[in-house]
Each structure stands twice: as C-alpha cells, then as structure tokens.
C-alpha cells in the first residue's frame, strides 16, 4: 500500500491511498483502502489521514476516522495516531501504520508494524524513516 496526505498554502488538506491489497487474496476481496474513513479521510476542520496495514482490521475500527476523532478531542496528530493504532492492536489484534496532518501543519508518521517507509517535506527539510524510532532529516 502507498499513500499521502498534504496541506497546501491555503490550509486545505487532502489524502490519497492506493494498494494492490493482500498477498494471494480471494478474487473480489476489497480491503480498507477504498472505504472512506478506513483507508483515508480528509476534513479541513480536523486533518487528513492515510492508512496501511491489515485491511479487515483497519475497517473494523475505521482507522483513519478514528485518528481524526481523537484530534477533534484535542489530541496532537502524533498522539491521536499512536492511540488509534494501539486501539486497533488491542481490540482486534491488527497492525498497521498511518500518516497524519492537521490544517496547521503539524504531522505524524506512526506504525505498529515492524517497518513502514515514510517521508515528509516541510519548510525546506525532508524527513524520512523506515524502522520504528528512525527519523533522518536532510535539506531539500
């Protein structure tokens, strides 16, 4: 799966997600990606999220919308992402990852799986990582 979230100069947020799905899936199986609130969600009033992971579990907790719900309750992008992934893991045993932005330009890339490649660009700096805890930066 791949995805992206962005905030433009006018403060508008958007998300996009795309996937080939699960390895050796049944013909016709559709996962979380095309489902609003599961594979992604974007609302200028709260933020934007794109998700990856085990689709059936992501759908059970509507992961993207869950992250934004926690942000609406006052949590930061990072805290909301972490608490939502933890909820998915504890409630249905699912692993995954999210990238999240809010309209003010705060962002997070969080995952409960072993790895997730991610990168972010803001203010002329490129941030990126692959393993948990990794956060490299370089000038663009």
């Amino acid at each position, binding site marked *: 799966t791949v995805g992206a979230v962005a905030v433009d100069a006018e403060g508008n947020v958007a998300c996009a997600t795309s996937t080939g799905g699960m390895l050796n899936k049944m013909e016709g*199986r559709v996962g979380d990606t*095309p489902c609003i609130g599961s594979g*992604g969600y974007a609302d200028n009033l709260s933020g934007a999220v794109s998700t990856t992971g085990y689709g059936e579990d992501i759908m059970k907790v509507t992961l993207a919308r869950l992250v934004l719900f926690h942000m609406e309750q006052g949590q930061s992008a990072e805290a909301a992402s972490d608490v939502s992934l933890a909820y998915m893991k504890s409630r249905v045993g699912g692993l995954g990852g999210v990238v999240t932005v809010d309209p003010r330009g705060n962002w997070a890339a969080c995952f409960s799986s072993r790895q997730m*490649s991610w990168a972010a*660009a803001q203010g002329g700096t*490129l941030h990126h990582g692959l393993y948990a805890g990794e956060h490299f930066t370089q000038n663009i």
Partner: protein
Amino acid sequence: MLPLVVVHGGAGHVPKERSENSAMGVCSATQAAYRILQDGGSSMDAVVEAVTRLENNPFFNAGCGSVLNVKGDVEMDAIVMDGRTLASGAVSAVRNIANPVQLARLVMDKTSHACLTAEGASQFARSMGVVEVPQESLITEYARMRWRNNLEPSANPVECQMGKMG
C-alpha cells in the same frame, strides 16, 4: 501557512534487500509532491502526484508491483479525499490500469458516486479515455515469486506480508 506533505509505503515486512529502494521511493515521491505545493499547487494535486509516483515504482504494492490474488491476477483499490468539501472518489478491484489513484480522482471529479468497482470501474475508465495497460506490465518477478510461495495450503500470506509482530 507552510505547505507540507507526508508519504508512506506499506506497513509490514520490508526485506532488507528492498529497504533502500523503499526509502528512496518515498523520499522521491515526497519531493515531487512538495514541489507542487511550493509552486502554489493544491494539496489534492500533491497527494495524487505522490501516490502516482509510488504506483509507478515496482518496489511498492500498488500499481506496478501490486501483489497478486490467488488466481495470479492484479486487482487494485484506491481512494482520494478533499478536505475542503469532503468530496471523495474511490475504485476497487480495478484491473489493467496503471494509476488507480488517478481513476479515483476522476470518480470524485466527474461523477456523483463515491466508489466504482471491478468492471464498472473499467468501463468508467474507458469512457474517460484512460489508457488500459496489459496486466503483465503491472506484475513484477518479485510479486510472482511471493504468489508462488504462498499457494500451498500451509502458507500464511498475511504473516508473509505483514510480519509476525510489530
């Protein structure tokens, strides 16, 4: 307001021999999307650009490089959503399209529907002039190898893709 873009690949197991290309892929897609934002482009244009580039990158499970279903075919899903209006568009189980994310954007821009699936999505793509591509052009040797290795009844494709634990 400082523009910002964040991009991800798949959560799960990335083999060591593919990790460098995976990291380079997201960095390159992020920079391309960021240029659009710096030039005054919209957040929607930026996310579609980033995802299009990753769909075209065979190191990711989307577009070219997608995993195969049990029959050895490629079926892809994509979604876009615009935070200004809550407009969204999606496609599911779509075949023979190089960039499902661009088709999802067309669903958002050109129809009143939220999601088109399978043959209906293909018919819509044809009506929009989207070029169909041979399935073979979306299948990598790596995807075929993983498909073959997970055909046996004892195989665990979810564990193979997601890894054993986080």
